[in-house]
């Protein structure tokens, strides 16, 4: 709103007050991971490196943390790359090429974008079993990437629609193929879109819990989300160490949050699914 109310500082104070619990949560995670004992938000013991022992030893029969960490990197990286490439290709076709059923295709993408994919998990479990992809990282990667496609196609179509087409026309007239036009001219021009979609897909896959939890069993295929979850269900939880695991797992996300707040806000305000 262009005109701020005269007492906008009071409003700001109220906003800060309601936002305090979120900040408190983050502070709790950092403190509990670092100290021996934390009462509320006050450290009641010395800093404790023992919380981080999961880094150099397997804890309670779990694999060393390097296994799920590597799996999570592969999972998030491949999913993000696949989503960005495959959605861009489809979005480019919908935005630029003429083919029968084009508006039907876009309608399908829109419906799927709104459709809550998690309700399909039971059937997906069954299909992966039949395909022999159950309990494999490949299987979860395929599923996760597919479920992000409607959003990705939708987002990228918006970016391609916005490009002026004269340059592409010129390249086509000069004899470039459609693929070369896409790769050399269109894609570099929508770099902000690629970056936004890539970041979103990366964050979403990094945090993904339900899919690996349902579709993976063997501990050698665990992702970080599953590794951390095994600590939550224990009857006696060593919160110091679990918080350290959580902090370790969330570090890339927290770093991105602290460094790129404005950038994240733009991505999530730009019509990206909530």
């Amino acid at each position, binding site marked *: 709103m262009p005109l701020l109310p005269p007492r906008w500082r009071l409003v700001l104070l109220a*906003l800060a007050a309601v936002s305090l619990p*979120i900040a408190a949560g983050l502070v709790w995670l950092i403190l509990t991971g670092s100290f021996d004992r934390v009462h509320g938000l006050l450290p009641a013991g010395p800093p404790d490196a023992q919380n981080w022992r999961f880094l150099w030893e397997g804890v309670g029969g779990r694999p060393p943390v390097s296994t799920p960490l590597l799996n999570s990197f592969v999972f998030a990286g491949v999913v993000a790359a696949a989503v960005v490439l495959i959605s861009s290709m489809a979005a480019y076709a919908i935005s630029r090429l003429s083919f029968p059923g084009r508006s039907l295709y876009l309608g399908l993408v829109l*419906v*799927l974008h709104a459709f809550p994919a998690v309700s*399909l*998990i039971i059937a997906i479990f069954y299909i992966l079993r039949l395909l022999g992809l159950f309990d494999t990282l490949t299987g979860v990667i395929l599923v996760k990437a*597919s479920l992000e496609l409607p959003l990705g196609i939708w987002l990228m179509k918006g970016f391609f629609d916005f490009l002026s087409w004269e340059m592409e026309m010129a390249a086509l007239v000069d004899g470039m193929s459609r693929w070369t036009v896409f790769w050399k001219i269109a894609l570099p021009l929508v770099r902000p879109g690629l970056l936004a979609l890539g970041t979103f897909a990366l964050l979403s896959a990094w945090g993904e819990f339900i899919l690996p939890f349902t579709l993976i069993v063997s501990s050698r295929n665990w992702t970080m989300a599953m590794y*951390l979850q095994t600590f939550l269900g224990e009857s006696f939880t060593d919160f110091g160490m679990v918080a350290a695991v959580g902090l370790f797992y969330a570090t890339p996300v927290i770093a991105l949050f602290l460094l790129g707040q404005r950038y994240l806000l733009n991505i999530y305000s730009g019509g990206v699914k909530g």
Partner: protein
Amino acid sequence: MKRYAAPFVFLFPATFLIACFFLIPVITTVYLSFTDISTVTFRNPRWVGLANYQALLSDPFMGRILLNTTRYVGLTLLFNVGMGLALALLSSSVRQRWADQIRAVWLLPRILPPVVYVLIWQGLTREAPFGLVSDVVGVSKNWITASPWTVIILANGLVGASFGMLIFTSAIRAIPNDLFYASAVDGATALQTVRRVVLPLLRWPILFVTAYQTLSLLTSFEYILLLTDGGPGFYTTTVWSLHAYKLALSNYVGNVQFGLGAAMAALLVVIGILVSFVYLRIFNFKALVGEPKIEVN
């Protein structure tokens, strides 16, 4: 046919994956719901018609689950939309620099991995002297077991509120400045401007956020699964989607009743598809599918 070679190549990977993991699963869910598929009969399920649906109707816990689902969706929705609206209105009334900071803080629960987010909730709701909530309230309890619903709704709400906040904020930004100046010239107070100018213009975004979040809440169970796993005790916080998931995919009744879970999921899928079609009307569909500018393939 050469004319359609390019669209085919560009669309093939996306279409293939969407078919495998969206379209076929929709059909599979419905198909499985008509079979007796379970751990024992996994490889060769038998067609049983509507037996699963009849079993659902006669399930003595169904009333409880429906009640839980209504409570979960209704109350969380109220929190999400109300808080989202409040955050959007309040943060639009302070200096931009501060507003962005506040909105960014509210993004944090959304971008944190759900398991880490739930871990934080578990830590904050522990007994004294560890849990911050027990400290602040002055009563030492494990708040997740003591008031599971409050924790579930707040945990979901803090994540969900940012969705409404962002949508409402951009809707407020889209209001022409003239309207605010006109209302100021007419002597309206800030509250009157919000009540008479802003809120009426937010009607569509509010409707959209409500519809969208109703659907996603109806099918979401991630935070409940992690926070209470449907307990404490018997079905205390089990909602429809969580029950479907557990019937089909976890071994908590011995033999996994895949078909029964699929029947519950199939109803969600049908609702999901119907509501998604309604969205096509909310989005201005015709305007979005204008013909492409270059017709050469």
